[in-house]
C-alpha cells in the first residue's frame, strides 16, 4: 500500500505538469487545424452515418431506441477509449528528449494522452445530447446521476491500458502495430454498433467477458434507457481499479529503465 501512497503523492506534486502537458497536447493537436475540436466528433459522426445505413437499411436490427442514437452513444464511448490509447501507445517513444534527459514521473505521458481525450469526450457528449434531442429521446433520467461513475470507470480502465501499452511500446516497438489490429477487432467484439448479446453461443459467452461491453452498455443504460447499470458493470468497475493499480505499480517499477531502453 505504501507504494500507492508514494505514487499518488508524487503525482500530486507534479499535478501542474500534468495539466501543462495536457494543455500542450491539446494545443498541438488542434493548432493549425480549421475544424479544431470538430475533429473530436467527426469520426463518430461519420461512423454513425455508415452504420445507420447498414443496420437500418441493409440488415435491420432492433436496438430498443433510434439506431443513430444507439450507435453514436456507443461510438462516443468507444472513440474515447481508442483515441486515448492511440495517443498513449507512442506517448513515451515520441518524447525521447524528455524521457532521456529530464526527470519527472513518466506516468504523466500516458495520463496526459488520456486527459486530452477526456476533453474530446466532453465535447462529444454534448453533441450526443443534441443527437438525442433530435431523435426525441433526451430525457432527464435520475440515472444521469450515475454518469460520472460510468465515465470514471471508463477513464480508469483506459488509463490502466494506457500505462501498460505506452510502457510495452517503449520496450517493443511491435506493440503499436499490434495495437492497431487489436483495436480494430476489439471494436466489433464490443457492443459499439450492435448489441453483442445477439452473437450467442460459445463465442457469445466469450465476448461477454469483454469489459468494454459492460462499460459501453452502462453508458446507454444511464443516458438513454434511464436505468442503473447492470451488475456486470460494477464487477468491471472493481476489476478496472485493480487493473489500474497493477499497471501503475508495474509502470513505476520499470520507469527507471526507460531512459536506458529508449
Amino acid at each position: 500500500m505504501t507504494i500507492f501512497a508514494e505514487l499518488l503523492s508524487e503525482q500530486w506534486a507534479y499535478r501542474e505538469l500534468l495539466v501543462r502537458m495536457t494543455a500542450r497536447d491539446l494545443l498541438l493537436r488542434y493548432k493549425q487545424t480549421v475544424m479544431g475540436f470538430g475533429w473530436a466528433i467527426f469520426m463518430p459522426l461519420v461512423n454513425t452515418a455508415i452504420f445507420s445505413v447498414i443496420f437500418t437499411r441493409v440488415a435491420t436490427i432492433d436496438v430498443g431506441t433510434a439506431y443513430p442514437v444507439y450507435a453514436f452513444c456507443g461510438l462516443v464511448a468507444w472513440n474515447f477509449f481508442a483515441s486515448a490509447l492511440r495517443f498513449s501507445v507512442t506517448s513515451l517513444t515520441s518524447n525521447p528528449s524528455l524521457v532521456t534527459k529530464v526527470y519527472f514521473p513518466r506516468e504523466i505521458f500516458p495520463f496526459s494522452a488520456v486527459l486530452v481525450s477526456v476533453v474530446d469526450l466532453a465535447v462529444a457528449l454534448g453533441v450526443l445530447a443534441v443527437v438525442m434531442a433530435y431523435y426525441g429521446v433526451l430525457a432527464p433520467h435520475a440515472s444521469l446521476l450515475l454518469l460520472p461513475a460510468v465515465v470514471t470507470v471508463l477513464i480508469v480502465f483506459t488509463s490502466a491500458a494506457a500505462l501498460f501499452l505506452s510502457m510495452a511500446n517503449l520496450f517493443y516497438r511491435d506493440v503499436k502495430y499490434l495495437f492497431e489490429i487489436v483495436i480494430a477487432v476489439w471494436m466489433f467484439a464490443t457492443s459499439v454498433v450492435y448489441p453483442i448479446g445477439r452473437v450467442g453461443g460459445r463465442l457469445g459467452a466469450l465476448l461477454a467477458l469483454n469489459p468494454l461491453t459492460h462499460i459501453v452498455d452502462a453508458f446507454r443504460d444511464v443516458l438513454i434507457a434511464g436505468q442503473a447499470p447492470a451488475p456486470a458493470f460494477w464487477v468491471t468497475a472493481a476489476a478496472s481499479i485493480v487493473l489500474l493499480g497493477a499497471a501503475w505499480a508495474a509502470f513505476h517499477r520499470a520507469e527507471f529503465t526507460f531512459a536506458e531502453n529508449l
Partner: protein
Amino acid sequence: MSAVRVSGVWKKFRRGERQDSLRDLVPALIARGFGRRAPEGLAKQEFWALRDLSFELQPGEALGIIGPNGAGKSTLLKLLTKILRPNRGEISLQGRLGALIEVSAGFHPDLTGRENVYLQGAIMGMARAEIKTKFDAIVDFAGVEEFIDTPVKRYSSGMNARLGFAIAAHLDPDVLLIDEVLSVGDVGFQEKCVTRMRELIARGTPLIFVSHNLTAVVDLCTRAILIDHGVVQYDGMPADAVVAFRQSRRSESAVTAAPDSPIRITDVTLRRGDGEPSPLFQTGGPMTIRVGYKAQRPIDGAAIAIDVHSADGVYCTGINTRMDRCTLGTLSGEGAVELAIPRLALLPGCYTISAGILDPAGLRPLDLHARAYPFSVASDRRDFGFVYLEHNWRHDGSQQTTARRRVRATAGAIQEELG
C-alpha cells in the same frame, strides 16, 4: 547535514543493441528463465559505468567534476537527476534540484516562447504562480522579449538555449547541477551565466559543476573530484584535481621522435621558485623549465624550443634558443638546458608545455614532446584572458587644475581594495 550524498553507487550498462522487437522477446525470456544470471554481477556485454562511487556535498560547496570522455560523468549526472537509478548504492539529495542540463529539452517547436516557458518551468518543478512572478525576469535574462510570442521553431539555436538557461537560472534550487553551460550563447550571455552562478554560490547554494573547461572549474569551484573509469581518482582542491587529471592524460599525449634521431629529450621538469618540481604555479611567480637530453653523437647548432598552449588549445607563446640568439654549443652525451621565467605572465588556468629539440637548420624537430607537460596557474587575480600584463593606472585629474588630484594605483593596490 550534507546537501547531496552519493554512497557506494554502482551503475552498469549494456554494450550494443538490445532486442526491442517481440521476435527477440521469447528467446530472451527463455534465457532469463533458465540462465542463472546473478543480478549483482555482469552479464555478457555489460560493463560498469560507475564503480562504488561515493562523495558528499556540503551546503556552500561548489564541487567540480572532471574526467576524460567516457569516465562516467554523464552517468553520474543522470543518476543525480533521477533519470537513471543505480544498480547498487544510494543517492540522497536535500530539497529541489535545479539542473542546468538540457535546459530546453522540454521545448516544443510548435509552441511559442511564452507557452514553452510555462511548460519547461513545470517540467523543472515550478508552480504556475512562481513562473508567473518570474516570467519577466526570465524573458529579460534570455533577451528574447520581441520573440516571446513566436513559436520556438523560428528561434535561433542560441535563443533557444538562452531561454532554456534563463528558466533554469530562475529556479532558485536547493542544489544546482550544471553541465557545460559555458558553451551556451555568446560571450555576453556567458558572463551573465557565470555571474548568476556566482550569485547562487555566494548565497550558499551547493553546486555541482561538470565540465571539460578546466579553467572554469578552477575558477568557480571550491572543491573538485576527478573521475576516471567510473571511480573517484582524486578528491580535493580544484587546481590539484586538474593537475591529477593532466598527469593521467600525459601518457596518452604525443611524444614523437624519428626512430633514427641522434638526440632525444629524456625528461622535462617544471620547478617553482624554491626549486621544487611542481605542476602548480602562481601568476607573476617564477618558473623554471628544465629539458634533459641524451645525444647519440655530438650535435652542433641544435636549438631547444618551448611552446605553451592553454587547456582549450590556444597557442599562448612559443620561444626557442635560436630566436633568442642563445647558442647552446655542442650537445653531447647527457645534459640539460634550463629556461628560467622570472615572472610568469599567465593568468589562472590550465596550460600545457611542449618541448622540442630543433635540428641545426631549424626545419624539423629532432625530438618533440607535444603538449606533454601540463601545469596549472593559480592566483587571486581575476583578470580576463590568458596573459597577465604588469600595469599601473593613473588618473590625470579633472579640469580643476588648482588641486590636481593624481590617482596612482598599482594593480596590487586595486587588488587589496577589491579584497
